[in-house]
Structures are given as C-alpha cells and as structure tokens.
C-alpha cells in the first residue's frame, strides 16, 4: 500500500498542488488516472495482502467474539455473537491461567538466560583467546538449524532417569538425579535449558556481528585509562551493543512467548500441566473445535507479545 504514492509521485510536477484549485475537470481526471495507475502498480501486493493477511486477521478477530465451533463448519454464519464472553471465560479457565504462568516463567527465565549465554559465547569467540573459532561458531549454531524432532529425541535420551547421560554422570559423583521430564518441578526448567541451548546460537551470531562493529580504538582508549576487562565490557561493549541487545531481546521474547514445539515433542504439556504453554493450550482448543474460544486466546497472546516488545523498547531503546 505504501508503494502507491511512491509510484505516482515522480509523475507529479512540483507545485501541482497549488494550481489544482483553479484547474478544471481535465486536471482532476489526470489526477484520477495517476492514482489509478498507482493503485494498479501496487495491486499485486495489495490484493495478496488483503486476501491472505488482512481478511484472515479480521475474520479471526470477529470469530473471537462468536461461539463458533467445529460443528458450525457448514454454516459458519449461523452462530451467536457472544461479545467478550470468550475473553471473560479465558480468565476463569484454570488451565489457561496455568499455561500463562508457565509461559511467563519460561520467558522471564529463558530470554535473559539466552541473551547472557549468547553474549558470553559471542564475547569469547570475538576475543583472541579462542582458537578454532570457526569450529566453535559452527558448533554453537548447529542446534539452531537442527530439526526440533531430532533434538527432542536426543534430549529425551539425555534426560532419561534410568539410562540418561545426565543422571549417569550425576551417579558418578554420587547424586541420584530426578526424573527430569517426569517431575512437575524439573520439567519446565529442563525445557528452558533445552530452549536456551537450541536458540542461543542464533543470537550469538547477531551479537558477534555487533561486537565486531565496535571500533577497536575505543577499547584502546579505555585500556590507556587503565580500565580492566570487566570495566571495558561494562562501559564500552554493553552501551554500544544496546541496539543489538534490543533486537535480540525482542526476537527471543516473541519466540519464547509462543512456546510450543518443546513441550509438544518432549512432554505433551505434562506432567500435571506443568509444561503447558499458552500456544499449546490454544492448539488444544482448536483441536477440540472451540474455534471462537481459541481465537480469543490467540488475541490475548498477541496483546502479550506486543506488550512485551513495547516494554523492551522502553527499557533498551535509544535514549536521547
């Protein structure tokens, strides 16, 4: 849509606005033609956008105010409008509240942890200390490009209470490890660790690029002033990396709020709903055929994502 004026603008003579007033129908027709040309040029995008983005969004929003169920498939308009009833029900739905808490814990712990780990890895790779840099870079990035299904199988083996590597290692030092995915206290933390492991490689690459963009003479100046490594990191690296950190936080936050794959393949939301996420709950509700209710839950999640992103922009954004 934004391309419409861009397409029409070059053809418009400077000062046309002023002379328009006195112009007759000829001018107006010319203007109309220009506008039409512009719209025609932007039509391929506009039509696709309307059909595949705008309409579904509007329809799903409208759907969230009705009691549409899967049994209404043949007559989707023969449903009742229930106003905000779906939304009100959501906040009385114990499972939804449980899922919201789980998701918030996952985000509140997972996002900072991912950023810290990614930043640590990026800093280490950026310093001259590490040899085989390319090897590590590839190694850390591999989990990002590996299929979650394969990852899940491997992690299930790792975390297996009887034969798993983790508990066997613990046994060597004399500790009997818990049933990681089978206990309500350790299942969600296990998934957080797995998600951090799986996602930090992506942020690491971004942070590495950010680190390399920081001019070396700033560090040199800091060193001349007698700054330690930690002081250099705090006063030079962190402030200059802020835009990159913001990007990392927003992208990871959006991804983590939509937590779905990990519990889906690892725990199916269990045990006792301790790893049920909001997205998973929505998925279940769609599966049960409660289309209106599930759409309402989706919009609550959408609002939460927007809110988290705004918050991060406020905290980490440019300060002038």
């Amino acid at each position, binding site marked *: 849509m934004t391309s419409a004026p861009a397409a029409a603008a070059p053809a418009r003579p400077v000062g046309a606005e002023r002379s328009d007033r006195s112009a007759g129908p000829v001018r107006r027709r010319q203007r109309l033609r220009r506008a039409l040309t512009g719209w025609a040029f932007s039509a391929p995008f506009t039509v696709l956008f309307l059909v595949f983005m705008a309409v579904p969004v*509007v329809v799903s929003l409208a759907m969230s105010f009705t009691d549409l169920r899967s049994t209404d*498939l043949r*007559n989707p308009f023969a*449903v009742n409008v229930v106003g905000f009833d779906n939304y009100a029900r959501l906040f009385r739905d114990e499972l939804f509240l449980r899922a919201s808490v789980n998701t918030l814990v996952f985000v509140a712990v997972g996002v900072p942890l991912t950023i810290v780990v990614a930043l640590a890895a990026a800093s280490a790779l950026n310093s001259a200390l590490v040899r085989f840099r390319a090897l590590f870079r590839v190694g850390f990035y591999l989990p990002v490009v590996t299929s979650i299904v394969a990852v899940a199988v491997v992690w299930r083996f790792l975390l297996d209470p009887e034969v798993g590597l983790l508990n066997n290692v613990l046994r060597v030092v004399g500790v009997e490890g818990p049933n990681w995915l089978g206990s309500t206290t350790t299942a969600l933390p296990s998934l957080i660790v797995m998600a951090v492991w799986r996602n930090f490689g992506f942020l690491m690459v971004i942070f590495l690029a950010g680190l390399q963009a920081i001019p070396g003479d700033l560090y040199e100046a800091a060193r001349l002033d007698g700054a330690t490594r930690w002081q250099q990191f705090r006063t030079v690296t962190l402030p200059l990396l802020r835009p990159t950190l913001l990007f990392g936080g927003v992208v990871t936050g959006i991804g983590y709020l939509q937590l779905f794959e990990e519990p889906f393949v690892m725990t199916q939301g269990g045990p*006792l709903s301790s790893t049920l996420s909001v997205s998973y709950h929505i998925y279940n509700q769609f599966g049960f*055929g*409660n289309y209106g209710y599930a759409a309402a839950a989706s919009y609550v999640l959408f609002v939460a994502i927007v809110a988290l992103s705004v918050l991060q922009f406020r905290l980490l954004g440019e300060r002038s």
Partner: protein
Amino acid sequence: MRRTIRTGAAALAAVLALAACGRDAGGGQEEATAVAEGKATGEITVWAMGTEGEKLADFAKEFTAENPEATVNVTAVPWDAAHQKIASAIAAKQTPDVSMIGTTWQGEFAKTGALDPTPPDLFKKDDFFPGAWDTTVVDGTAYGVPWYVETRLVYYRKDLAAQAGFPEGPKSWDDLKAMAKGMKEKAGATWGMNLQPGKTGSWQSVLPFAWSNGAEVATEDTLSFGTPELTEALAYYQSFFTEGLAPTALPDGALEPGFVKGEIGAFISGPWHMGIVEEQGGPGFKDKYAVARMPAKKSSTSFIGGSNLAVFKDAKNRDAGWKFVQWLSKPEVQVKWYQAVKDLPAVQAAWEDPTLSGDTFLATFGDQLADAKAPPAIPTWEQIAAAFDVEVEKLCKQNTDPAATAKAIQDQATAIGTGA
C-alpha cells in the same frame, strides 16, 4: 486517510459478518433416504487413515470385480492430519464419497450436518456389536456404520499369576487386586499391574471400571461424573498406585520389555498388544501370557473403540458409496479384512468364522465385545476426555481424593457441556 478507510472496511466487514450470525434451533431426528437398487457404478472416492488407508485400495479390487462399472479411489490420510482434513473438506463442501471416521469424531462431524444418515434398507443395527453401533448414533439418528472394533482386556503373565494363586486369571475386582499383590509379593514382579496414570487416553482404562461398577457417566444430553459409582471406581483405580502395585512414572516403551521379563505382571490394553509382546518375547512367549475379560464388579464391561465408515451428504456418488460400505460390512469380507490388516470385525456374524473363533485370545476379545461400551457421540467428548485425563493424573500421582476428583471432572464437564 488510507488508514481510516482500511479500519472502516474492516469494521464494516466485521459488522456484516456478525449481523449475519445467529443459531437455528435445529437438532432432532433426520430421515435417511433409500439407496437405488442394482450394482454400484461410477467413481467412489474413499478416505482412510493408517494401515487401513494403505491396504484398502488393493482390497477393494474384489469389489470392483463384482461391480465392473465402479472404480474405487482410495486416498490414504495420515492419522495426525485426518481430523483437520475432513473438517476442511466439510467446510469447503468438497468431501469424498466415503470416509473412515474415528469413533470419537462421530458426534462432531455428524453435528455439522455433513454426514448422510445410514439407510436402514442396507444395514441392520443388530448385525453389529451394540457398543459399536452406538458410536454412530447422534440425536437418535445413525450416521455411518462401524467398520472395525477393538476392546480392552487384561493381559497377564500366566506363570506369575499361577504363583500369585490365580492360574485362571482374575475374574473380579478383588481377584485383580489380589493377583497384582501376589505377583509383587510372592512372584517377585517389580509391579503387579500397569495402569495408565493419567495422560492422553487414560479415560479408556478408567471408564471400563466405572461402567463395570454400574456408572452411567455420560449420555447424549446428561453428563454424570459425580456419582458414587464413578467415585468408587476411581478409588479402586487409585488404590493400585497408593499400594505400590502400579508405577506412576513408567518411561515410554518400558511396558512391553518389563512384561516380557516378568517385571510387570499384568496390564490392560487392546488387541494390538498381542503382536507387540509376542514379537518382543520371541518364540514361545505366546504360551507365557493370557488375556482375560475385564474383571467384574456389577458387570464385566470394557471400552469399545475402532472406526466407522460414513458417507457424506455432499458426496458426488452417494449411492455407490453406501454400496461399497455395505460390501465392507459383509461378514465374509470382514473376515478377509481381518486377515489382511488384523482389524477386528464389527459385524457379529464374522466372529463365527474359525479364523477368529478358533483362536482363544481372539475369542476372548470377541466375548468381551458383546459387553463393551463407548462414550456417547457428542462433539465435546474429546475435550471432556482431556479434562478427565488431567484429573486422573492428579488422582494417580498426587493422591487427590476420589470424590473430589469425580466432582472436579463433573464441574469441568458441566462447563464444557454436551455441545447440543
């Protein structure tokens, strides 16, 4: 300006969509229309899932040999995608002529009005197992017919059962408990019994106990989970966990090796487990275990599952579709279908064939099928079942009070409703 137009258009669209809404009173019985006489003609499109989807095309050649002017076009649909695919087809009114339908989906799809009522001139209710036929009935009308069935039995190790003092297997609730105890204490099994401690599908293990105790649980318009009968069944189920006879966190895939090694004395499952334990146990294992009917309390009632075959109202070739379904429901074809894919026949007469009646294990399944129930075909059943599974998990793992569990299930079921 542009933005206001867009928001305006969106709002207008929403208002138009909402204004057109409003439910009809609807419901009630539907009359089936008769199917034309004569042989089937034309192309019949069929959707089927899993093994059935893979094998049906070949199997249908016999049908096309009998009906030379008809062709059967089978599309294999993976189970995971099947529900969504059928739902989309119904919404788009682009359905196949015939589709396999999971029994628990029947209520939902029938309520959309997409399924054709079963023509009574082609099918007789009494030919099928009553529990299976009930899964096709929605609001008093049958939509489709049962294709194949499965039910749940107690699998037990004969050697351990003999040491525990039950060489003939358990007959009653008390027997089952005492056998599990004996297997653990006298026969040295780690677990006397394995029962599913919640999670998806655990209602299929719990409800047989409730039904055997006389609990009604659910009909098409009432949900009654808060009954003393269900509470008692839940307490009985829970006692296997509190008394340490059944594991609460058995890792995936540990059941069959445990059973083969004699670490797990017994479990409840369907016919597919015969093949699995015999494969894992190696030659001769068939003599080491046996299957028994669900232990009796007031009755010995099990769960009946399986799949139905339904014809769609939007079918292009409805009459031929029903004729194909009728052919698949012939007793001799059902026996052949069992031989091809090991699906247990839903038609009672097929069980007289020596292929099935000659095998003692299979005969026990056939015997149990005569007293096996399914939940009513209501569109909300899967959601109620999911809530049920969550509460059962709390019952088994957190020792919640059985009466409180029954009440929690009832409260959630009431909130969900029957979808009527």
